[in-house]
């Protein structure tokens, strides 16, 4: 070993190789393994162009593709007490929160927005699975209450995109109490006769499924989304047998009468507009208003 191979080469490598292959330019589809170029994938709303596998999409990207011209206004969510139980597992809860905030650039696991889709005014909420598995704590409860209050005030329908591993354990019983809390929010909408549409995305499980995500007037799911109360692993451990193919997936739930529709992400916007305009007794949307600007344009 001489100084050239020890020092010069690593230095040269670090100068060039990293720049040549930046990360995140290509995404491998977890379903079919196809390498997908990021621009292409984003333009296709994070759906694999080869096998139609629906990957996670951030609330912001979803809203950009949903609202007319990609324009929406965020609805303010009241801040809850941080770390109400002073919870600590292997890490302190506030540290986990900070790490999630840093990784996602978002404050919490839910984003509330208002705007128009095909000139139909709505309030929308989307859950962010990349933020601590989208788990439901006080903030998520506050977000849903804020969204429902805003919808009632503005007399607009509410569209909710769910994605969560369940309740946020670090908030203990208070996360469980978001089940009744969010149910109150749904009741506010129902009493005001406002449509409440739930779009269940992969995965929606636990206390989230067992509260606001199952109480929609219309229940739509994205293809192949896992939707359940108890997860498949827990069930397999309990009953000690293998579960059938496709168990607890969107299509399976549709077959068992738990959903109204399973809809491809690219067809979702148009479908929402159609449903919302009928439920709110508005004339059909004029063709040509249906396309949102892609986020990058």
């Amino acid at each position, binding site marked *: 070993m001489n100084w050239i191979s020890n020092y010069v080469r690593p230095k040269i490598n670090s100068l060039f190789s990293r720049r040549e292959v930046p990360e995140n330019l290509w995404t491998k589809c977890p379903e079919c393994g196809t390498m997908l170029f990021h621009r292409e994938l984003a333009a296709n709303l994070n759906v694999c162009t080869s096998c139609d596998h629906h990957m996670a999409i951030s609330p912001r990207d979803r809203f950009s593709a949903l609202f007319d011209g990609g324009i929406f206004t965020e609805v303010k969510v009241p801040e*809850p*007490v941080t*770390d*109400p*139980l*002073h*919870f*600590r*597992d*292997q890490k302190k809860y506030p540290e986990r929160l900070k790490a999630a905030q840093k990784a996602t650039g978002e404050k919490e696991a839910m984003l509330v927005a208002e705007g128009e889709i095909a000139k139909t005014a709505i309030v929308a909420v989307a859950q962010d699975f990349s933020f601590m598995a989208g788990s439901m704590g*006080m903030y998520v409860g506050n977000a849903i*209450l804020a969204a429902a209050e805003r919808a009632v005030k503005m007399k607009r329908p509410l569209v909710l995109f769910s994605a969560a591993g369940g*309740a946020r*354990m*670090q*908030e*203990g*019983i*208070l*996360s*469980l*109490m978001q*089940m*009744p*809390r969010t*149910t*109150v929010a*749904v*009741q506010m909408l129902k009493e005001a006769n406002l449509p409440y549409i739930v779009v269940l995305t992969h995965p929606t499980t*636990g*206390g989230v*499924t*067992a*509260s*606001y*995500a*199952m*109480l929609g007037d219309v229940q739509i799911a994205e293809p192949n989304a896992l*939707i*359940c*109360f*108890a997860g498949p692993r*827990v*069930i397999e451990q*309990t*009953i000690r047998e293998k*579960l059938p193919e496709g*168990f*607890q997936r969107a299509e399976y739930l549709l077959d*068992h*009468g*738990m959903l109204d529709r399973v809809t491809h992400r690219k067809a979702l916007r148009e479908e929402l507009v159609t449903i919302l305009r009928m439920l709110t007794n508005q004339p059909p949307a004029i063709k040509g208003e249906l396309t949102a600007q892609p986020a990058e344009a």
Partner: protein
Amino acid sequence: MNYLEFEKPLAEIEGKAEELRAMARGNSGMDVTKEAEALDRKAEVLLKDLYKDLTPWRKCQVARHPDRPHCKDYIDALFTEYTALAGDRNFADDHAVMGGIARFNDQPVVVIGHEKGNDTKSRIERNFGMARPEGYRKAIRLMDMADRFRLPVVTLVDTPGAYPGKGAEERGQAEAIARSTEKCLQIGVPLISVVIGEGGSGGAVAFATANRVAMLEHSVYSVISPEGCASILWKDAEKMREAAEALRLTAQDLQKLGVVDRIIKEPLGGAQRGRKETIEAVGKGIEVMLKELSGKKPEALIKDRRTKFIEMGSKGLAA
């Protein structure tokens, strides 16, 4: 008497006292009264000591104790004319959930609760208190009836959680729980709930979204079992002690958090050592809570429940 793991030293002393007395019975010339009584006193001191400051994990064990009074025991002792009403009118009758009309102090009420069973046969029949969707749908039906006929609803919560089974999921476990919680919030009659053992997650909330929630002194109420939490967050199910601590699942912590309105005292050594007193104390608690709500208008009861849950958790634990 079934002793819990942490009660082992107590089991030894009580066992010795019992042995002495048995020996004396077989041998008339022997007088062991003094020794046996000394052991009794020692046992009592130890019992007091053990139960003085139960750790959260020990509370979980006490809450799950097989000799604790269960839903059926409370219904038999505290209610008269209990008339079970079965079935969800859709699929089946869930034996993990008892429910029907009955009189409490002569007043007609609807009573609903999880029943765990008390021997192998009844435990299997009751599915260990783990309800399937039919259980929640039966509860919804009974709450609707209570609302129509203006009967207060009393729920007794004692479940490890909703049953994680294939059929339960296929028939919409999540939807059934969501609708049950929704129904709790909708009825215009007093709804009171007592956690008598384990308040396990969504399966408990579906019955306990009430105007007043009481808990027995050593019962627990949690979003997830300590074992489940430990295996997810610590990646080690054996860390259940730490998880139980962190989750704040004891009646005492839950009262501080404003989730629980009232704690019902248990006799020394837990409900399993004084079933009768425990049942009486729960009866007293139900009576007081019903009285607090009597005469309130339907709209006021609904509003009271909503406001309570909307405001819940806004303060957290005091630092």
